[in-house]
Protein backbone atom coordinates (compact mmCIF):
# COMPACT_ATOMS: atom_id res chain seq x y z
CA UNK A 1 0.00 0.00 0.00
CA UNK A 2 1.37 3.37 -0.99
CA UNK A 3 0.37 6.90 -0.13
CA UNK A 4 -0.45 9.05 -3.15
CA UNK A 5 2.64 10.84 -4.31
CA UNK A 6 1.37 14.39 -3.85
CA UNK A 7 0.25 13.89 -0.24
CA UNK A 8 2.23 16.08 2.13
CA UNK A 9 2.87 14.94 5.71
CA UNK A 10 4.56 17.36 8.07
CA UNK A 11 6.75 16.46 11.04
CA UNK A 12 3.93 17.47 13.35
CA UNK A 13 1.59 14.90 11.83
CA UNK A 14 -0.45 17.27 9.67
CA UNK A 15 -1.48 15.56 6.47
CA UNK A 16 -2.63 17.58 3.45
CA UNK A 17 -4.21 16.14 0.34
CA UNK A 18 -3.82 18.85 -2.35
CA UNK A 19 -6.20 17.09 -4.74
CA UNK A 20 -9.20 17.26 -2.43
CA UNK A 21 -8.03 20.16 -0.24
CA UNK A 22 -8.71 18.04 2.85
CA UNK A 23 -6.33 18.00 5.78
CA UNK A 24 -6.03 15.54 8.65
CA UNK A 25 -4.19 15.27 11.98
CA UNK A 26 -2.25 12.10 12.71
CA UNK A 27 -1.28 10.88 16.13
CA UNK A 28 2.31 9.86 16.82
CA UNK A 29 1.83 6.25 15.78
CA UNK A 30 -0.11 7.17 12.65
CA UNK A 31 2.71 9.48 11.64
CA UNK A 32 5.28 6.77 12.26
CA UNK A 33 3.36 4.31 10.10
CA UNK A 34 3.01 6.80 7.24
CA UNK A 35 6.70 7.65 7.40
CA UNK A 36 7.55 3.95 7.21
CA UNK A 37 5.22 3.60 4.23
CA UNK A 38 6.86 6.60 2.57
CA UNK A 39 10.21 4.92 3.07
CA UNK A 40 8.80 2.02 1.07
CA UNK A 41 8.57 -0.44 3.97
CA UNK A 42 6.33 -3.45 3.37
CA UNK A 43 3.40 -4.32 5.63
CA UNK A 44 5.39 -7.07 7.49
CA UNK A 45 8.26 -4.59 7.96
CA UNK A 46 5.91 -1.98 9.42
CA UNK A 47 4.41 -4.64 11.66
CA UNK A 48 7.83 -5.72 12.85
CA UNK A 49 8.95 -2.18 13.63
CA UNK A 50 5.79 -1.28 15.52
CA UNK A 51 5.63 -4.47 17.57
CA UNK A 52 9.30 -4.02 18.52
CA UNK A 53 8.77 -0.38 19.45
CA UNK A 54 5.46 -0.64 21.27
CA UNK A 55 3.93 -3.09 23.68
CA UNK A 56 1.54 -4.67 21.20
CA UNK A 57 1.27 -8.11 19.67
CA UNK A 58 1.57 -8.66 15.95
CA UNK A 59 -2.06 -9.78 15.63
CA UNK A 60 -3.34 -6.80 17.60
CA UNK A 61 -1.28 -4.40 15.55
CA UNK A 62 -2.50 -5.95 12.31
CA UNK A 63 -6.10 -5.27 13.32
CA UNK A 64 -5.37 -1.58 14.01
CA UNK A 65 -3.22 -1.35 10.91
CA UNK A 66 -5.99 -2.67 8.65
CA UNK A 67 -8.45 -0.22 10.23
CA UNK A 68 -6.01 2.61 9.59
CA UNK A 69 -5.46 1.54 5.97
CA UNK A 70 -9.23 1.33 5.51
CA UNK A 71 -9.51 4.90 6.69
CA UNK A 72 -6.75 6.08 4.33
CA UNK A 73 -8.46 4.26 1.46
CA UNK A 74 -11.83 5.78 2.36
CA UNK A 75 -10.27 9.24 2.27
CA UNK A 76 -8.69 8.39 -1.10
CA UNK A 77 -5.17 8.93 0.19
CA UNK A 78 -3.74 5.68 -1.19
CA UNK A 79 -2.54 4.97 -4.71
CA UNK A 80 -4.93 2.78 -6.71
CA UNK A 81 -4.13 -0.84 -5.96
CA UNK A 82 -4.66 -2.84 -9.12
Amino acid sequence: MKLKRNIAVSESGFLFDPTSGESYSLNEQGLEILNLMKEGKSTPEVNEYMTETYDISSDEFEKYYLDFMGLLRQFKLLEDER
Partner: protein
Amino acid sequence: MNGKRKLTIAVTGLNNTDNPGPGIPVIRALRESQDFDVRIIGMAYENLEPGIYMHDMVDKTYRVPYPSEGTDMLLNRVLDISKIEKIDVLIPNFDAELLAFMKSRKKLADAGIHTFLPEIDRFEERNKNNLPDFGKKYGFKVPSGQPVTNPEELKEIKEDFDYPVVLKGKFYDAYIANNDDQAAMYFHKISAKWGLPVIIQEYIRGTEVNVVALGDGNGNTVGAVPMRKLYITDKGKAWAGITLDDERMLELTHRLIGATKWRGGMELELIRSDDDEFYLIEINPRIPAWVYLAVGAGQNLPEALVKLALGMEVSPFTEYKKGIIFVRYSFDLITDINEFEKLSISGIL
Protein backbone atom coordinates in the same frame (compact mmCIF):
# COMPACT_ATOMS: atom_id res chain seq x y z
CA MET B 1 8.01 58.04 -11.55
CA ASN B 2 7.50 54.34 -11.01
CA GLY B 3 7.56 53.52 -14.73
CA LYS B 4 4.14 51.93 -14.61
CA ARG B 5 1.53 52.68 -17.23
CA LYS B 6 -1.25 54.86 -15.84
CA LEU B 7 -4.73 53.48 -16.43
CA THR B 8 -8.24 54.45 -15.41
CA ILE B 9 -10.30 51.34 -14.80
CA ALA B 10 -14.02 51.26 -14.09
CA VAL B 11 -15.25 48.38 -11.95
CA THR B 12 -18.70 47.26 -10.82
CA GLY B 13 -19.58 44.78 -8.09
CA LEU B 14 -18.52 46.85 -5.08
CA ASN B 15 -20.94 44.95 -2.87
CA ASN B 16 -18.43 43.39 -0.53
CA THR B 17 -21.21 41.88 1.55
CA ASP B 18 -22.10 38.36 2.66
CA ASN B 19 -23.06 37.82 -0.99
CA PRO B 20 -19.89 39.42 -2.28
CA GLY B 21 -19.37 40.92 -5.70
CA PRO B 22 -15.96 40.51 -7.31
CA GLY B 23 -15.28 44.27 -7.53
CA ILE B 24 -13.04 44.77 -4.49
CA PRO B 25 -10.96 41.60 -5.04
CA VAL B 26 -10.49 42.64 -8.68
CA ILE B 27 -9.40 46.13 -7.60
CA ARG B 28 -7.07 44.70 -4.99
CA ALA B 29 -5.46 42.57 -7.71
CA LEU B 30 -5.11 45.56 -10.04
CA ARG B 31 -3.55 47.68 -7.31
CA GLU B 32 -0.87 44.99 -7.00
CA SER B 33 -0.08 45.13 -10.71
CA GLN B 34 3.60 45.31 -11.60
CA ASP B 35 2.81 47.05 -14.87
CA PHE B 36 -0.08 49.40 -14.19
CA ASP B 37 -0.66 52.36 -11.92
CA VAL B 38 -4.44 52.31 -11.70
CA ARG B 39 -7.04 54.88 -10.89
CA ILE B 40 -10.25 53.07 -10.00
CA ILE B 41 -13.67 54.37 -10.87
CA GLY B 42 -16.33 52.47 -8.98
CA MET B 43 -19.77 52.02 -10.48
CA ALA B 44 -22.39 51.26 -7.87
CA TYR B 45 -26.04 50.32 -8.11
CA GLU B 46 -26.80 50.85 -4.43
CA ASN B 47 -25.72 53.54 -1.97
CA LEU B 48 -24.54 51.06 0.63
CA GLU B 49 -22.20 48.95 -1.46
CA PRO B 50 -19.22 48.87 0.93
CA GLY B 51 -16.61 49.36 -1.78
CA ILE B 52 -17.91 52.89 -2.36
CA TYR B 53 -16.54 53.94 1.02
CA MET B 54 -13.23 52.07 0.73
CA HIS B 55 -11.20 55.03 -0.45
CA ASP B 56 -7.94 53.11 -0.45
CA MET B 57 -9.51 50.84 -3.06
CA VAL B 58 -11.87 53.05 -5.05
CA ASP B 59 -10.81 56.56 -6.07
CA LYS B 60 -14.23 57.80 -7.11
CA THR B 61 -17.64 56.21 -7.35
CA TYR B 62 -20.62 56.95 -9.58
CA ARG B 63 -24.13 55.62 -9.14
CA VAL B 64 -25.33 53.84 -12.26
CA PRO B 65 -28.84 52.68 -13.21
CA TYR B 66 -29.70 48.99 -13.02
CA PRO B 67 -29.49 47.17 -16.36
CA SER B 68 -33.18 46.34 -15.94
CA GLU B 69 -33.90 50.05 -16.53
CA GLY B 70 -32.60 49.59 -20.07
CA THR B 71 -29.28 49.01 -21.75
CA ASP B 72 -29.23 52.54 -23.17
CA MET B 73 -29.70 54.12 -19.76
CA LEU B 74 -26.76 52.20 -18.37
CA LEU B 75 -24.59 52.71 -21.43
CA ASN B 76 -25.25 56.44 -21.62
CA ARG B 77 -24.40 56.81 -17.96
CA VAL B 78 -21.10 54.97 -18.48
CA LEU B 79 -20.30 57.09 -21.54
CA ASP B 80 -21.07 60.28 -19.59
CA ILE B 81 -18.82 59.13 -16.74
CA SER B 82 -16.07 58.38 -19.23
CA LYS B 83 -16.27 61.89 -20.65
CA ILE B 84 -15.18 63.07 -17.21
CA GLU B 85 -12.91 60.25 -16.13
CA LYS B 86 -11.50 58.95 -19.45
CA ILE B 87 -12.04 55.28 -18.69
CA ASP B 88 -9.48 53.01 -20.35
CA VAL B 89 -10.92 49.66 -19.31
CA LEU B 90 -14.30 48.60 -17.94
CA ILE B 91 -14.57 45.40 -15.89
CA PRO B 92 -18.22 44.50 -15.24
CA ASN B 93 -18.65 41.99 -12.44
CA PHE B 94 -22.37 41.22 -12.30
CA ASP B 95 -24.01 38.52 -14.38
CA ALA B 96 -27.09 40.69 -14.77
CA GLU B 97 -25.22 43.56 -16.45
CA LEU B 98 -22.95 41.53 -18.73
CA LEU B 99 -25.33 41.24 -21.63
CA ALA B 100 -25.89 44.99 -21.69
CA PHE B 101 -22.15 45.63 -21.84
CA MET B 102 -21.53 42.87 -24.37
CA LYS B 103 -24.15 44.38 -26.66
CA SER B 104 -22.52 47.77 -26.22
CA ARG B 105 -18.98 46.60 -26.87
CA LYS B 106 -18.56 48.57 -30.05
CA LYS B 107 -20.04 51.77 -28.65
CA LEU B 108 -17.79 51.45 -25.62
CA ALA B 109 -14.77 50.80 -27.82
CA ASP B 110 -15.62 53.83 -29.96
CA ALA B 111 -15.51 55.88 -26.77
CA GLY B 112 -12.07 54.46 -25.94
CA ILE B 113 -13.39 52.08 -23.27
CA HIS B 114 -11.83 48.64 -23.62
CA THR B 115 -13.58 45.52 -22.38
CA PHE B 116 -12.75 41.84 -22.52
CA LEU B 117 -16.07 40.05 -22.46
CA PRO B 118 -17.38 36.76 -23.85
CA GLU B 119 -19.04 36.61 -27.26
CA ILE B 120 -22.83 36.85 -26.92
CA ASP B 121 -23.51 33.39 -28.40
CA ARG B 122 -21.00 31.78 -26.03
CA PHE B 123 -22.54 33.70 -23.13
CA GLU B 124 -26.02 32.51 -24.09
CA GLU B 125 -25.19 28.88 -24.69
CA ARG B 126 -23.67 28.43 -21.22
CA ASN B 127 -26.81 29.86 -19.62
CA LYS B 128 -28.14 27.69 -16.84
CA ASN B 129 -31.19 26.69 -18.86
CA ASN B 130 -28.99 25.76 -21.85
CA LEU B 131 -26.39 23.86 -19.86
CA PRO B 132 -27.56 20.32 -20.79
CA ASP B 133 -27.26 21.22 -24.48
CA PHE B 134 -23.89 22.84 -23.81
CA GLY B 135 -22.72 19.60 -22.18
CA LYS B 136 -23.86 17.56 -25.19
CA LYS B 137 -22.30 19.94 -27.71
CA TYR B 138 -18.89 20.09 -26.07
CA GLY B 139 -18.75 16.68 -24.40
CA PHE B 140 -18.95 17.56 -20.71
CA LYS B 141 -20.91 15.71 -18.05
CA VAL B 142 -23.71 18.00 -16.95
CA PRO B 143 -26.60 17.24 -14.57
CA SER B 144 -29.92 17.04 -16.35
CA GLY B 145 -31.92 20.22 -15.99
CA GLN B 146 -35.00 22.02 -17.15
CA PRO B 147 -36.26 25.59 -16.98
CA VAL B 148 -39.62 26.00 -15.26
CA THR B 149 -41.83 29.06 -15.58
CA ASN B 150 -44.73 28.21 -13.28
CA PRO B 151 -45.20 26.00 -10.22
CA GLU B 152 -47.66 23.76 -12.06
CA GLU B 153 -44.80 22.62 -14.28
CA LEU B 154 -43.03 21.27 -11.22
CA LYS B 155 -45.74 18.61 -11.02
CA GLU B 156 -45.54 17.86 -14.74
CA ILE B 157 -41.81 17.21 -14.74
CA LYS B 158 -41.88 15.19 -11.54
CA GLU B 159 -41.29 11.94 -13.39
CA ASP B 160 -38.05 13.24 -14.87
CA PHE B 161 -36.42 13.92 -11.51
CA ASP B 162 -35.90 12.19 -8.18
CA TYR B 163 -35.60 14.19 -5.00
CA PRO B 164 -33.45 15.88 -3.94
CA VAL B 165 -33.35 18.38 -6.81
CA VAL B 166 -31.60 21.72 -7.07
CA LEU B 167 -33.62 24.85 -7.88
CA LYS B 168 -31.63 27.75 -9.30
CA GLY B 169 -32.32 31.35 -10.18
CA LYS B 170 -31.32 32.46 -13.67
CA PHE B 171 -28.54 34.65 -12.29
CA TYR B 172 -28.01 33.70 -8.66
CA ASP B 173 -29.28 31.53 -5.82
CA ALA B 174 -29.61 27.79 -5.53
CA TYR B 175 -31.54 25.64 -3.10
CA ILE B 176 -31.80 21.90 -2.57
CA ALA B 177 -35.38 20.68 -2.32
CA ASN B 178 -36.18 17.32 -0.81
CA ASN B 179 -39.91 17.19 -1.55
CA ASP B 180 -42.77 18.84 -3.46
CA ASP B 181 -43.45 21.42 -0.74
CA GLN B 182 -39.86 22.57 -0.57
CA ALA B 183 -39.63 22.69 -4.37
CA ALA B 184 -42.72 24.92 -4.56
CA MET B 185 -41.44 27.15 -1.74
CA TYR B 186 -38.03 27.64 -3.37
CA PHE B 187 -39.64 28.20 -6.77
CA HIS B 188 -41.57 31.18 -5.35
CA LYS B 189 -38.60 32.45 -3.38
CA ILE B 190 -36.28 32.40 -6.40
CA SER B 191 -38.78 33.68 -8.97
CA ALA B 192 -39.73 36.60 -6.69
CA LYS B 193 -36.10 37.67 -6.53
CA TRP B 194 -34.63 36.80 -9.90
CA GLY B 195 -37.62 36.36 -12.17
CA LEU B 196 -38.33 33.44 -14.47
CA PRO B 197 -37.41 30.82 -15.41
CA VAL B 198 -36.31 28.89 -12.39
CA ILE B 199 -34.01 26.02 -13.33
CA ILE B 200 -34.56 22.56 -11.91
CA GLN B 201 -31.37 20.56 -11.89
CA GLU B 202 -30.52 16.98 -11.02
CA TYR B 203 -28.69 16.81 -7.69
CA ILE B 204 -25.25 15.22 -7.96
CA ARG B 205 -23.88 13.87 -4.72
CA GLY B 206 -20.27 14.84 -4.17
CA THR B 207 -17.97 17.72 -3.39
CA GLU B 208 -18.26 21.10 -5.05
CA VAL B 209 -15.03 22.39 -6.50
CA ASN B 210 -14.42 25.50 -8.59
CA VAL B 211 -12.00 26.91 -11.11
CA VAL B 212 -11.30 30.56 -11.86
CA ALA B 213 -9.94 30.92 -15.37
CA LEU B 214 -9.23 33.40 -18.12
CA GLY B 215 -9.58 32.64 -21.81
CA ASP B 216 -7.94 34.75 -24.52
CA GLY B 217 -10.75 34.34 -27.05
CA ASN B 218 -8.60 32.19 -29.34
CA GLY B 219 -8.99 28.99 -27.39
CA ASN B 220 -6.01 29.50 -25.10
CA THR B 221 -6.23 29.42 -21.33
CA VAL B 222 -4.25 32.34 -19.96
CA GLY B 223 -4.59 31.16 -16.38
CA ALA B 224 -6.60 28.77 -14.23
CA VAL B 225 -6.64 28.01 -10.52
CA PRO B 226 -8.80 25.27 -8.94
CA MET B 227 -10.25 25.72 -5.47
CA ARG B 228 -12.43 23.96 -2.93
CA LYS B 229 -14.59 25.91 -0.55
CA LEU B 230 -13.57 25.21 3.03
CA TYR B 231 -16.29 27.28 4.66
CA ILE B 232 -19.61 27.99 2.97
CA THR B 233 -22.07 30.63 4.14
CA ASP B 234 -25.80 30.04 4.32
CA LYS B 235 -25.96 31.79 0.93
CA GLY B 236 -23.65 29.12 -0.47
CA LYS B 237 -20.77 31.55 -0.82
CA ALA B 238 -17.17 30.63 -0.13
CA TRP B 239 -15.99 32.26 3.09
CA ALA B 240 -12.76 30.27 3.02
CA GLY B 241 -11.17 28.19 0.31
CA ILE B 242 -7.99 26.40 -0.67
CA THR B 243 -6.16 25.98 -3.99
CA LEU B 244 -6.05 22.41 -5.23
CA ASP B 245 -3.57 20.33 -7.17
CA ASP B 246 -5.85 18.57 -9.62
CA GLU B 247 -4.69 17.99 -13.18
CA ARG B 248 -8.12 16.74 -14.25
CA MET B 249 -9.79 20.00 -13.27
CA LEU B 250 -7.20 21.95 -15.21
CA GLU B 251 -7.49 19.64 -18.21
CA LEU B 252 -11.29 20.09 -18.16
CA THR B 253 -10.86 23.87 -18.00
CA HIS B 254 -8.38 23.96 -20.89
CA ARG B 255 -10.65 21.71 -22.93
CA LEU B 256 -13.68 23.93 -22.26
CA ILE B 257 -11.88 27.17 -23.07
CA GLY B 258 -10.33 25.54 -26.15
CA ALA B 259 -13.68 24.29 -27.44
CA THR B 260 -15.62 27.49 -26.79
CA LYS B 261 -12.80 29.95 -27.51
CA TRP B 262 -13.91 31.64 -24.32
CA ARG B 263 -13.07 35.32 -24.09
CA GLY B 264 -12.69 36.81 -20.63
CA GLY B 265 -12.88 35.64 -17.05
CA MET B 266 -14.96 32.70 -15.94
CA GLU B 267 -15.72 30.51 -13.00
CA LEU B 268 -16.47 26.83 -13.44
CA GLU B 269 -18.59 25.23 -10.78
CA LEU B 270 -18.05 21.50 -10.71
CA ILE B 271 -19.15 18.58 -8.60
CA ARG B 272 -16.60 15.86 -8.04
CA SER B 273 -19.03 12.99 -7.58
CA ASP B 274 -18.54 10.23 -5.06
CA ASP B 275 -17.34 7.97 -7.90
CA ASP B 276 -14.74 10.62 -8.85
CA GLU B 277 -16.38 11.98 -12.00
CA PHE B 278 -16.58 15.71 -12.68
CA TYR B 279 -19.97 17.24 -13.46
CA LEU B 280 -20.17 20.78 -14.75
CA ILE B 281 -22.98 22.45 -12.83
CA GLU B 282 -22.49 26.07 -13.82
CA ILE B 283 -20.30 28.40 -15.86
CA ASN B 284 -20.24 31.91 -14.47
CA PRO B 285 -19.23 34.24 -17.29
CA ARG B 286 -17.10 36.57 -15.20
CA ILE B 287 -14.38 36.69 -12.60
CA PRO B 288 -15.64 35.27 -9.27
CA ALA B 289 -15.45 37.05 -5.90
CA TRP B 290 -12.73 34.65 -4.70
CA VAL B 291 -10.35 35.67 -7.51
CA TYR B 292 -7.88 37.15 -5.05
CA LEU B 293 -7.02 33.58 -4.01
CA ALA B 294 -5.64 33.08 -7.54
CA VAL B 295 -3.61 36.27 -7.15
CA GLY B 296 -2.29 35.00 -3.82
CA ALA B 297 -1.39 31.72 -5.50
CA GLY B 298 0.61 33.50 -8.21
CA GLN B 299 -1.84 34.26 -11.01
CA ASN B 300 -2.97 37.88 -11.22
CA LEU B 301 -5.85 37.15 -13.56
CA PRO B 302 -7.51 40.60 -13.35
CA GLU B 303 -4.24 42.22 -14.43
CA ALA B 304 -3.95 39.73 -17.31
CA LEU B 305 -7.55 40.52 -18.29
CA VAL B 306 -6.74 44.22 -18.48
CA LYS B 307 -3.74 43.46 -20.69
CA LEU B 308 -5.91 41.38 -23.00
CA ALA B 309 -8.52 44.15 -23.11
CA LEU B 310 -5.81 46.56 -24.18
CA GLY B 311 -4.59 44.18 -26.87
CA MET B 312 -1.28 43.51 -25.11
CA GLU B 313 0.60 40.23 -25.39
CA VAL B 314 0.02 37.98 -22.39
CA SER B 315 2.03 34.86 -21.65
CA PRO B 316 -0.13 32.14 -20.11
CA PHE B 317 0.46 31.34 -16.47
CA THR B 318 1.86 27.86 -16.09
CA GLU B 319 2.01 27.54 -12.33
CA TYR B 320 0.26 28.44 -9.11
CA LYS B 321 0.86 27.57 -5.49
CA LYS B 322 -1.14 24.66 -4.15
CA GLY B 323 -2.53 24.63 -0.63
CA ILE B 324 -2.99 28.40 -0.47
CA ILE B 325 -5.95 29.40 1.68
CA PHE B 326 -8.15 32.47 1.76
CA VAL B 327 -10.30 33.31 4.76
CA ARG B 328 -12.74 36.17 4.38
CA TYR B 329 -13.57 38.49 7.22
CA SER B 330 -16.09 41.20 7.89
CA PHE B 331 -14.97 44.67 8.85
CA ASP B 332 -16.86 47.67 10.19
CA LEU B 333 -15.97 50.58 7.97
CA ILE B 334 -16.72 53.94 9.59
CA THR B 335 -17.84 56.77 7.37
CA ASP B 336 -19.69 60.04 7.76
CA ILE B 337 -23.28 60.79 6.84
CA ASN B 338 -21.89 63.50 4.53
CA GLU B 339 -20.42 60.84 2.27
CA PHE B 340 -23.71 58.98 2.11
CA GLU B 341 -25.51 62.27 1.48
CA LYS B 342 -23.14 63.23 -1.31
CA LEU B 343 -23.63 59.93 -3.09
CA SER B 344 -27.39 59.93 -2.53
CA ILE B 345 -27.89 63.46 -3.85
CA SER B 346 -25.31 63.81 -6.58
CA GLY B 347 -24.69 60.13 -7.46
CA ILE B 348 -20.95 60.76 -7.15
CA LEU B 349 -18.49 60.19 -4.32
